[in-house]
């Protein structure tokens, strides 16, 4: 069996301690010349993604800062807004009645992540910070040795997906992020000096290596969702199988109704580029309409245009492009005609 590399583990009791440990152990702005695996210190929460990656030697940190013992790291609190601590498991998020009732897209997305076992361990914070994925990169050390590695681990090497690409094309693959984006989420970050809050949409970058706009010594502590009165939301996912698989296309949609008119709308996609993306043109196509078929078609066109799948996941580029349009249409139809598609997407 594949074995973990040797590492030390630290178990802080507070997020501030965790941030301090990151700094003390040499976390800084990621040095592109060193490549991802040279990160000396990393955070681990549920470990469902990190440990397999470490076994494959995609990362070999000297120190892991575990968030498992951080106090109050796993709770959902309603205070006008909905505050979800980063250590809340995906099972807890998916099962929370407040989330299910008012933030439906998030409950659906959390429930569609991987398998029940992994959702019991995996956290919302871990999913939001999920490493970008690529089928040239998510391979064992042996495989990557045979291939000759790629830009994501070895900056001196090309991107295997498109050898002329100046940047890494690994794919944003978190299910919960498009749901959170359409629900207007913000992220709370803790560093050694203090805290800050950023719009979740600003947390991501179109770069498979430096995929997050947060500092390397920052810890994601909480996701906050604004009040959801009048909003209706959903998340649809395309994957190869009914469980286990990462999305190969995912669309989150939310609309705020005012009578029979769409007052506000957000559409976000995942797995169709290196960053999860709010599609602004889709919003424009919907606001002020009655969510008629023409408006939905225009929004779907906008998503289709924004989708930039590459040949580095399961499925194919054209299949995923087509899906970006179809999932958008179905998501919006379900928000117009509840029961049409939303809660029970096709089995596969």
């Amino acid at each position, binding site marked *: 069996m594949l074995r973990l590399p040797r590492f030390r583990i630290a178990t802080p009791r507070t997020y501030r301690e965790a941030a301090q440990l990151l700094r003390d152990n040499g976390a800084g702005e990621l040095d592109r010349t060193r490549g991802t695996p040279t990160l000396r210190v990393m955070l681990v929460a549920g470990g469902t993604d990190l440990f397999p990656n470490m076994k494959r030697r995609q990362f070999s940190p000297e120190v892991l800062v575990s968030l498992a013992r951080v106090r109050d790291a796993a709770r959902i609190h309603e205070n006008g807004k909905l505050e979800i601590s980063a250590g809340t498991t995906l099972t807890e998020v998916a099962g929370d009645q407040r989330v299910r009732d008012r933030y439906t897209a998030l409950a659906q997305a959390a429930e569609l992540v991987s398998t029940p076992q992994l959702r019991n361990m995996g956290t919302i914070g871990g999913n939001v910070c999920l490493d970008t994925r690529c089928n040239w990169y998510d391979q064992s050390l042996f*495989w990557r*040795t*045979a291939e000759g590695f790629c830009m994501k681990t070895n900056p001196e090497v090309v991107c295997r997906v498109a050898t002329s690409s100046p940047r890494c094309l690994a794919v944003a693959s978190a299910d919960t992020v498009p749901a959170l984006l359409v629900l207007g989420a913000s992220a709370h970050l803790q560093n050694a000096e203090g805290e800050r809050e950023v719009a979740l949409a600003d947390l991501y970058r179109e770069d498979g290596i430096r995929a997050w706009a947060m500092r390397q010594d920052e810890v994601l502590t909480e996701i906050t969702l604004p009040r959801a009165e009048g909003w209706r939301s959903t998340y649809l996912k395309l994957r190869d199988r009914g*469980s286990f*698989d990462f999305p190969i296309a995912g669309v989150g949609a939310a609309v705020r109704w005012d009578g029979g008119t769409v007052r506000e709308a957000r559409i976000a996609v995942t797995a169709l580029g290196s960053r999860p993306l709010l599609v602004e043109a889709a919003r424009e196509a919907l606001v002020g309409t009655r969510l008629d078929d023409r408006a939905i078609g225009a929004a779907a066109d906008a998503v289709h245009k924004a989708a930039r799948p590459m040949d580095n996941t399961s499925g194919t580029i054209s299949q995923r492009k*087509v899906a970006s349009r179809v999932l958008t249409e179905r998501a919006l139809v379900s928000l117009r005609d509840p029961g049409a598609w939303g809660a029970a997407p096709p089995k596969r």
Partner: protein
Amino acid sequence: MSEFSIIGRRLPKVNSWAHLTGEARYADDIFLPRMLYGRLLRSTRPHARIRRIDVSRALAHPGVVAAVIGADMPEKMGIMPSTQDETALAVDKVRYVGEPVAAVAAVDEDAAFEALSLIEVDYEDLEPIFTIEDALEREDVKIHEEAKRANVFKEVHLSFGDLDAGFARADHVRDDWFFFEGNTHAPMESHSAVAQYGGDDKLTLWTATQVPHYLHRELEKVLGLERSRIRVIATPNGGAFGGKSDPFGHEFAAALLAMRTRRPVKITLDREEVFYAHRGRHPVKMRIKTGVQKDGEITAVHYQSWLDGGAYASYGIATTYYTGALLTVTYRIPIYKFDGVRVYTNKPPCGPKRGHGTTQPRYGFECQIDKIAEDLGLDPLEYRKRILQPPNSRTVNELRITSMGLGECLDALQRRTHFSERRGQLGRGKGIGIAGSAYISGAGLPIYWNDMPHSGAEIRIDRGGGVTVMCGTAEIGQGSDNVLATVAAETLGVYPSDVHVVSGDTSLTPVDLGSYSSRVTFMAGNAVRDASLKLRTLLVGAAAEKLGVPETRLLSAYRRIYDQDDPEKFVTFADAAVLAESKHGTLVAAGSYKPPKGIGGTFKGAGVGPSPAYSYQAAVAEVSVDLDTGTLVVDKVTTAHDCGRALNPPNVEGQIEGAAYMGYGEIIGEEQVFRGGLHKKPSLLDYKLPTSLDTPALEALVVESVDAEGPFGAKEAGEGPLNPVIPAIANAVYDAIGVRFDETPITAEKILDALGKRDNRGVTKKRIGPDGLGGDADPNRALRRLGATTAARERRVAGDGGQSPPTG
């Protein structure tokens, strides 16, 4: 009331508790004092010469105890004695990424893993070959120097009757190309072996193998150790499906490391390594030309296959023959020609996977039968029934057919699914499809020439009435131990739970050739029956004496031997055992089974195909296609299977359902595919085995034709039921969307392409599949070349007659 006390009852398997609770001791569960952990260094190159290997730095690494390389075991080996082209570890050349090159043994897994990176291998890269077409054409690149033409491993041609005359008699001829993508077994348990070399200079190897006897022979050859000093114990296999029926590098490496260090050595492959060990389904290109009369009667079939064999032989010679051999046993074919070519490519070796070599042609042929039915305006189910090969007959290629229940299978499916009324009536996007199939109940010949039994069993009865059955079969999860216990229990009159089964141990058990080719129920079942009957005679004789009742009036069941006219007049089984042992001495009997002679032809190549009995099966698949996303959902698969007699119905149903699952996986998206020689998806996340959520509703209908020669009439149930599922799904997709899928798997991409929705180009297609050999290779040229060599070969064969090769 049943004539049987045990047969046909829904009893739990004798070993299900051990398997369910984790009590069963798999190879990797074995921990021995002072045991070392081994790991294999694998090739990072698809095709390269090894200039130099240096293990000195690895040996100097803390914790490392020993290292071995190919040169330590240069003897050629391989499962088929006539085509041994492999070494335990690569000697001077590597032929695929993942081929074992060296092995280390260390005090723990971490040290072994670290040591691998310290082994220096100096490779000189050679041009690799990845496609069938290149392998056929490239004379300048030789994966194996021994290949006579380009990279052809084996070329076979069999002809039965005047093909041209057959096609001339046809009113309608179909000529279709098909492609079946390669895939792998993906058993839950990865391969594992533990070797121990004792102070007595004897080697014991516990290993997850389907073929302990064949492995025993290969260990002797490669290690240069007499077989009398080697003991192979087949541990329970956590699934095998054909993937553990070759001798593997890690088995030899563990053995040699144990001999060198005199410490036990364990090597367990990780999941990625299992994908490299492979020996799975061959990718096969096929061309099938079939002539029929107006009423559908087949006048002639010309079947051609091109197999992508990967880097080594494995069972390839048998696989090649199997692609052509069993096409004839389902429907009447009066004239038949088969051309098969297997080539070497720089990929992990292909071999036998459930349905061995018959799955691909069966897919193509059953899709074509569906097309012919449509061309002739016939119902596909009724059409198949009309052209059935009759029972107790000979096929055109001289295979003896005995019991034949395909017609009953089709009837059972019609009753259950109402296929004929529903076909074409389900609306766009919904479809129903059907296909038939057959499989062997064990190969008629062993893989090496000999006149000994194919299966031997030894049974002992202890003084308390316990029964011990010893047989060389390997329990691979298919239920073979349960079959042996069931046959012994029924024959002797005890319960299966009274029977201790000792299987797959070359020191304790008589030879059985192994758990492959669906041979265990039929062959080992008959061997156990033979031994049981001998002991039963002794027990009944002793009981008759005691009861004063003639032997002919005595029956044995429920741990009693009783007077059938007065069942309360009995002796217990345990008492009968004491009486019999007092009279005859220790109660031991041996039994054996060997297939009858004359069940196949005598022409060269007739060795593959004959079987003492064929199982028959048919499946109906119901599908839904998402016309927007191209997603194919298989809603239900109903399989009817003629297993002769169900010795244990739940076990048979489990095999049928498991086979349907596996067949479904093969057409829905499992692919062993490569990118520049690197496996594209060597993990269970990326290799898309269906999950329980994807798996269709599965229903098994057991059909019993009661075979005259099978134990209690039983035939195989392990492999055949996979075959019809794949073409049934392809035919159902045609019913749903009017597109023929003449290649596997049926992906969303291909469905979107056919529907004209890919890239919104709007061009629809009626068919997805190959039109010949691919790439730049001119199919006609390749065919002309094949034709020319065929003609030359046939002229030669006509001269010398020749004898069948030893193939299993």
